[in-house]
């Protein structure tokens, strides 16, 4: 009886959910210049990165995008963000989309960390009244001391990553797309970054995270999509998709 009502509740919730992203028949081809002995002056060849993807993502879902390097994860995220042109198919999305790829929202080397944060904040839609809290949250998170007021060109890769990651995770998108972002900084920073990332994900409406961190995917995501050679291998619960992915990578096949 209890189980039946739970199932009923579940189906009701699903049918009430609004679609945040609808991907239909998505194909992406890259046009790459190639030179060979037969074509000494070169030619453009097409490389198919995504093939016939159909995905519906609902508001509030946290989806893990899994797959080997070159599977098409980053291409898919860039396409959803409107930064890459599909060769066929369509994506319809609802809400503001932020792509967290690397940790550089567009820093200018000639400016200090603080000046960069101020200029970029306005360009990313932070209002003047929100600005001081916004800066403080990044300064506290990055924790790079007086270097925050030094020129950005003199920052180490780790320092750049800290300020960049702090900046992007302080924004408030409706749809958040994340592409392998925890690669920067020391062990302590990664710990801090994971906590901040979780806060960010819970604050954002819908999240798609492309990751090789299966622990993060298992902990945070409700759904998992595994891509291989530009095609969907499995689209299921996070747990099922992770198991399939592990199986796929260990056995070397689909």
């Amino acid at each position, binding site marked *: 009886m209890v189980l039946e009502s739970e199932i009923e509740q579940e189906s009701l919730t699903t049918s009430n959910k609004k679609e945040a992203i609808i991907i239909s028949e998505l194909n992406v081809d890259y046009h790459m210049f190639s030179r060979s002995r037969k074509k000494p002056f070169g030619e453009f060849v097409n490389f198919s990165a995504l093939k016939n993807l159909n995905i519906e993502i609902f508001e509030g879902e946290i989806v893990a995008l899994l797959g080997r390097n070159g599977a098409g994860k980053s291409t898919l995220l860039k396409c959803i963000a409107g*930064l890459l*042109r599909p060769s066929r198919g369509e994506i319809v999305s*609802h809400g503001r989309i*932020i792509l967290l790829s690397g940790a550089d929202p*567009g820093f*200018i080397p000639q400016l200090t960390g603080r000046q960069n944060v101020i200029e970029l904040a306005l360009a990313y*839609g932070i209002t003047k009244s929100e600005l001081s809290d916004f800066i403080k949250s990044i300064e506290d998170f990055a924790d790079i001391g007086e270097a925050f007021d030094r020129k950005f060109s003199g920052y180490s890769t780790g320092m750049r990553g800290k300020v960049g990651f702090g900046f992007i995770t302080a924004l408030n998108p409706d749809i958040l797309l994340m592409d392998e972002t925890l690669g920067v900084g020391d062990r302590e920073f990664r710990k801090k970054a994971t906590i901040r990332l979780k806060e960010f994900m819970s604050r954002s409406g819908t999240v798609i995270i492309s990751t090789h961190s299966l622990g993060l995917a298992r902990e945070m995501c409700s759904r998992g999509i595994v891509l291989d050679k530009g095609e969907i291998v499995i689209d299921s619960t996070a747990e099922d998709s992770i198991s399939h992915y592990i199986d796929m990578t260990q056995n070397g096949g689909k």
Partner: protein
Amino acid sequence: MKRVVNSEFCKEIGDLSSDDMKLDNNRMKFILKKKFRHMSGRRRLGLVWLVLDPIVVSVVYLFIFTVLRASTRVESIFIGITLFRLMQVSLKLGMNSVQDFTGGLKAERVRTRVLTGAMVRYRIIDNFLQSGGVALILFFGYNVSPSGIGIFLLTAQLIGFLSEGVGMNLAPLAKKIPDVTNLVTYLLMILFYASPALYPLSFTNGIHYYLNTLHPFTYFVETSRYFAGLDSEILNLDLRFFGVFLFILLLLIWRGYSLIDNLRWRMTTWS
């Protein structure tokens, strides 16, 4: 906000709110500042170089003409060199305009109207900086009339926009076949010597005169010289040619700016 992405476009559906407009305005300012910062780089004089550049180049050519004992007026050279350099720089910028379609903001797509708005503002300021210094020299040093200065500044704006427009039309070709950039560099070099940038048109005759009349730049520079009270052939030229050139160039500007959205979209998957 609903956004549709397909092979033809990336479009937001619905009207922009006042917050969106404000955001776009902030983004235009950001892109504009970034462009000028990039131009000035770590140079101590920064943007002053934009003002100094046409003056210094003109002075160098003046020196050459003095050695050659040519009787070219200083004002004529200043006007010719400045307008030609503006044409050169704007054409190249137009060709590279769609290389960076992010506008420097890497985490979110920037609307095309932001990129276009920033480009237009940048062009106006750049045109003014590149011609302003020379205009001051002409006014204070050579007593060129205010109307002559006005026409010179206006011609500089026109040449800047027209050249950028032509450059934008060449952008997809240059991106697909980078060799086009080399060809344009050589073409500009030929056009520099085969145009009345260094000398007034009246110094030429025969085939040289005829070839110069086929060059749109001739009409702009000779008009500017005429209003500055200098030796000019503009009244002896067939102004119907000028009208046709101007019409074609204006069409290219319109085409260039209206194609930005399409170009930036198509180029995202080219590598």
